């Protein structure tokens, strides 16, 4: 067992990573509750945004514009997909809706690999201005990007909680999570509420893509499949509670990074989200309700 001081820097990086996973997880849960779609292309659209931002950066565009473009691209693709395929698949099983987003993931992934070839290409990086500044707690160096990562997770979780609880749109989303048909009968413009959920999820995907490109790596494959870690958090929360999603995401992020200095386990650290999700899902009580068509969550 390495000394405690070896673990300390990994707590910071783990918290930052966990924060971004939490932000992604909250985006996934809100979209799932409002539209019934588990958006598996979340990582891919974030990667697309980040790579577009990198391309602009190479052309000499200012940093703030790149960041904005990253979020805008992710939001636009997500909203576009939601507007086209959302209504077409609205009445289908959640499983079908989720598999359809795999289609989008593959399209985006192929496109990114075509435009920004990963094999043999130069290592790309997308730095944020906040990488340079920072402070230290005792021996541990903390940079502002890591602070932003964790803070974004906290702010988005709390903000979304408040939004769902107190605003009209949030109430409409919660109503749709319960029953889309009845909500529509009550005069809620379901299509518009769904579009808002898609847009919000897309914006979060863009932010997550930007932060993960900085914290982890700017690489289409890595970013596309990093969504699986957030997915694990979402699964532990049973696609329902955003507080639980946040907690699970932080645990996944911190545990993953804390395993790094332990030599016997370091190769297995990437299993953290999978194992936690598998255990989380399997020990959870079996739901008693068996419905004909709708997935009980």
């Amino acid at each position, binding site marked *: 067992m390495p000394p405690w001081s070896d673990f300390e820097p990994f707590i910071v990086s783990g918290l930052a990573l966990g924060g971004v996973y939490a932000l992604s997880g909250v985006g996934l849960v809100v979209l799932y509750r409002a539209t019934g779609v*588990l958006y598996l292309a979340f990582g891919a659209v974030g990667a697309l945004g980040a790579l577009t931002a990198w391309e602009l950066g190479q052309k000499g565009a200012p940093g703030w514009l790149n960041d904005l473009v990253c979020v805008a691209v992710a939001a636009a693709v997500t909203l576009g997909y939601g507007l086209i*395929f959302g209504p*077409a*698949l609205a009445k*289908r*099983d*959640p*499983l*079908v809706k*989720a*598999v*359809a987003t*795999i*289609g*989008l*993931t*593959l*399209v*985006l*992934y*192929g*496109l990114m*690999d*075509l435009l920004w070839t990963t094999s043999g290409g130069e290592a790309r990086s997308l730095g944020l201005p906040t990488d340079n500044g920072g402070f230290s707690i005792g021996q541990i160096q903390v940079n502002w990007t890591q602070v932003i990562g964790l803070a974004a997770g906290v702010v988005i979780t709390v903000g979304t909680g408040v939004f769902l609880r107190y605003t009209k749109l949030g109430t409409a989303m919660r109503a749709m999570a319960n029953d889309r048909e009845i909500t529509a009968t009550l005069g809620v413009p379901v299509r518009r509420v769904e579009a808002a959920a898609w847009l919000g999820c897309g914006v979060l995907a863009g932010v997550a893509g930007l932060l993960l490109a900085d914290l982890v790596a700017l690489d289409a*494959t890595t970013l*596309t*499949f990093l969504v*699986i870690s957030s*997915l*694990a958090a979402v*699964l532990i929360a049973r696609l329902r509670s955003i507080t639980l999603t946040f907690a699970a995401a932080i645990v996944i992020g911190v545990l993953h990074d804390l395993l790094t200095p332990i030599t016997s386990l370091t*190769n*297995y650290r*990437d*299993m953290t*989200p*999978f*194992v936690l*999700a*598998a255990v989380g*899902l*399997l020990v959870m009580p*079996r739901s008693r309700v*068996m*419905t*004909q068509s709708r*997935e009980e969550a």
Partner: protein
Amino acid sequence: MRATLIRANLIRTNPQNATRQKPSLIKAAVIAVLLLFTLFALPQILSLYYIDTMTQVAVYSMVTLALGVLVGRVGLVSLGQVAVLAIGAWVAARLLFATTQPYPVILVEAGLITMAAGTITGLAALRLRGLYLALITLMLAGAITVVLATVNFPNGGHGFLGYNGSLVHIPPIRRPSIASTDPAYFRYAVIVAIVMFALAAAHIKTKPGRAWAAIRQSEPAALAAGINTTLYKLWALALASFITGVAGGVLAGAVHYLYSIDFPTQDSITLLAVTLMGGVYSMWGAVVAALLYQFLPALLNNWGVSADWLIILFGLGVLQVLTTAPAGLADQVPRDLARLGRLLRSRSRSRSRGRGRTRPRSAP
């Protein structure tokens, strides 16, 4: 249930079904001709590059067959089938290095051990349904990939894992003595695939197939009809794991050297995409899917086209299948061709009729 009975009666009394005997005979003849062509003519025609590719097609047709049974017949979506294939390949490679047993025995053993692994996992995972089940298979596949990356495939080393990182001359994984050349091994792989297709067909046409169909349509209704849904779902998982395990065994001999980077988690996702595109409701779909998954990339590679276009195509294919053509290419292409044929025939008929009589086209 009543609706099903009524539908069954309708089918039975439908006069068109009296003529179904003939098409099934034609179908059998077509299959026989295709198989003979694949087994005897194809290895003569193709270059070594394409023979290797077609061996992969044979291997992956078993994998897509297994996934097709799960998705199309029972309604269980697995996002981790490539990990199951990797388990089969690992077990077969380990046994091939450790023992001198004949190849078919190794294949059956690899299948059975993979089946045991799949069934035990399934026993736990079947507490979940639908979306959750699909995602947990993705998680398990991810975990298996990570373990494989550390454990590595056997390369003739000693110990349980059979891996020796400092080995300089890595022995190739052996092939059966009757099929040591590439064309012979291709035939061998096709024959194994035929046996697996027959095994799946035997299941689909008998009691388990009927139980699966009931479960796919509605699990509560199947339960109400007295079907042991857990048993039959497990059965399907066991069959799919067995077939995939055998496919892994064939793959081990085909490539001679196995590396964990050849089984990434994302391939399971692509595999589901091509399986859906090929069509999950017919066995032809499995063959189409394997061709899409292995033959098309080899073809494009030969032409110098990036494989990324294929990934994009697969993505679009999934979206198209889910929105408009649930039965995939295996169903859509023949139907569209038939429709085209009818259209052409009616066009030519109306033209010949138009020549005979000068009736205005806009007449009601």
